[in-house]
């Protein structure tokens, strides 16, 4: 019982790891706080559910979801780069609009996929558990991303997040780089949404709330745990972070926390992690002051 629950938790960690990789692209590489994923994750679920429910193939539906997510990311990019709306607000606007879009796509608030063909079932027919599917997807995504970040365009994307003035003076259109990064990131979020819908057997309009923050939590945990330098390690860390995050949530639930409290816990976790430098500074000041007061040299 515990074993199967733990396997389920790891499966979640792997599939949500795809979103975490997307969040890593926007938040970490592009330095763009993109909240669109809260809408593109359920968009992917909505698209695949509607497609499968009306008789389409799960694989085509999943690809369609990926494409829809890319378009959602491009929409945010358009608002930000062409209409000059701030990055944060652009994401919120697209996310808000997507709520209506997702309802339109589904035609109602929830589509069950019981006894429908899904990628998860296909894998099951070959005797493979869902985690195999998710592991393959997340590893392929990671490897593709690692390779991409080592290409010329990958360099330009990273430099855009690091120093826009520098990369523009090297002849790169930073608007295009932001569009690219946002498209990729939200494509991945929608892909994960499509897989999650097929895994849990339904799509629901409300399933996207907190996606960006959960993804960010995974990225932060991963960075804290995996401290090797280099791009390959960074993305490995993100996936590990995603699994650890899901295991932590699983543990919290077993300790008796209500599932409804999880978003609060996640938010607090992210706040603590992001404010760590401030806390560290305060603590050092405190200790430094104390030491000086006792006459012990600090250096």
């Amino acid at each position, binding site marked *: 019982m515990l074993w199967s629950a733990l396997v389920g938790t790891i499966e979640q960690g792997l599939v949500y790891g795809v979103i975490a990789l997307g969040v890593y692209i926007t938040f970490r590489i592009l330095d763009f706080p993109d909240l669109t994923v809260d809408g593109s994750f359920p968009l992917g679920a909505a698209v695949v559910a509607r497609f499968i429910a009306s008789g389409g193939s799960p694989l085509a539906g999943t690809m369609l979801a990926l494409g829809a997510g890319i378009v959602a990311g491009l929409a945010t990019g358009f608002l930000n780069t062409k209409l000059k709306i701030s990055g944060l607000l652009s994401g919120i606007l697209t996310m808000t609009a997507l709520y209506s879009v997702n309802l339109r796509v589904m035609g109602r608030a929830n589509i069950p996929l019981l006894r429908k063909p899904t990628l998860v079932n296909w894998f099951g027919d070959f005797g493979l558990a869902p985690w195999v599917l998710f592991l393959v997807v997340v590893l392929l995504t990671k490897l593709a991303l690692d390779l*991409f970040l080592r*290409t*010329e365009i990958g360099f330009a994307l990273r430099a855009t997040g690091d120093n826009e*003035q520098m990369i523009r003076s090297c*002849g790169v*259109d930073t608007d295009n780089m932001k569009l690219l990064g946002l498209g990729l990131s939200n494509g991945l979020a929608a892909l994960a949404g499509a897989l999650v819908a097929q895994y849990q057997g339904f799509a629901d309009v409300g399933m996207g709330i907190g996606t960006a923050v959960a993804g960010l939590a995974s990225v932060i945990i991963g960075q804290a745990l995996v401290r090797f330098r280099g791009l390959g390690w960074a993305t490995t860390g993100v996936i590990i972070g995603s699994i650890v995050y899901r295991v932590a949530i699983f543990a919290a639930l077993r300790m008796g926390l209500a599932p409804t409290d999880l978003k609060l816990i996640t938010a607090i976790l992210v706040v603590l992690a992001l404010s760590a430098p401030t806390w560290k500074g305060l603590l050092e000041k405190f200790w430094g002051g104390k030491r000086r007061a006792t006459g012990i040299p600090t250096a």
Partner: protein
Amino acid sequence: MLQVSQLRKVFCNGNGMAKVALDNVDLHVEVGDFITIIGSNGAGKSTLLNAIAGVYGVDQGQIRIDGVDVTNQPEHRRAHLIGRVFQDPMIGTAASMSIEENLAIAVKRPERLGMAKGVTGRERARFRELLALLDLGLEDRLHEPVGLLSGGQRQALTLLMATISTPKLLLLDEHTAALDPKTAEQIGELTRKIVLGRRLTALMVTHNLQAALEFGNRTLMMDQGQIVLDLRNPRRAKMTVDDLLQQFMSVRGERFLDDRALLA
């Protein structure tokens, strides 16, 4: 080479006051010219360089580089023609990326970026050679993030990045001003070596009047958005810093306003 004609740039600050930063500037630069630019604070030196680089549009006039009208091209479209080094050593490089990655971006300035490998083995060998010429030991630190370098090292790297793909025009805006005197001198020498050695065409803004006369073959003095003095040889060769200050007074009818220049 560079043809700036009747260039005008007006800034509007918050409370609707207009400030004429470039007042119908005309400038003709020949291939191989190494021009130093001096002038009091707010004279329009940086604005001129920014306008040439396309950081912002201008209100009037025309900029031609090598016969091509670039006046309405966005910055990234004309970037392949121009190398730049800024006053702030942080601006010219991407801190989180390694030395070789920064150089790889710079060397592809004239090309369209694709899905090819970002740094190839051949490029790496070339970077190592070029870095060795800087004599800072950077050739052994290709994989280190640029953020770990000192200001002077970063500025030397920026200079290399700005010139690695042989730009038509090199724009230097007080690129040694944020460095300590010894490092500033080193970067200055490096600049001279690169510009003369590669026969680049360069505009260099400086607050050091001595350097303005020592470097290059022509000196411009700007004031209130205009070029008020255009010194060329042989007259320039005989000029001293005192002569320059005199010139300024006669143009402006007042003392040279640049406190930094007087301290230098």
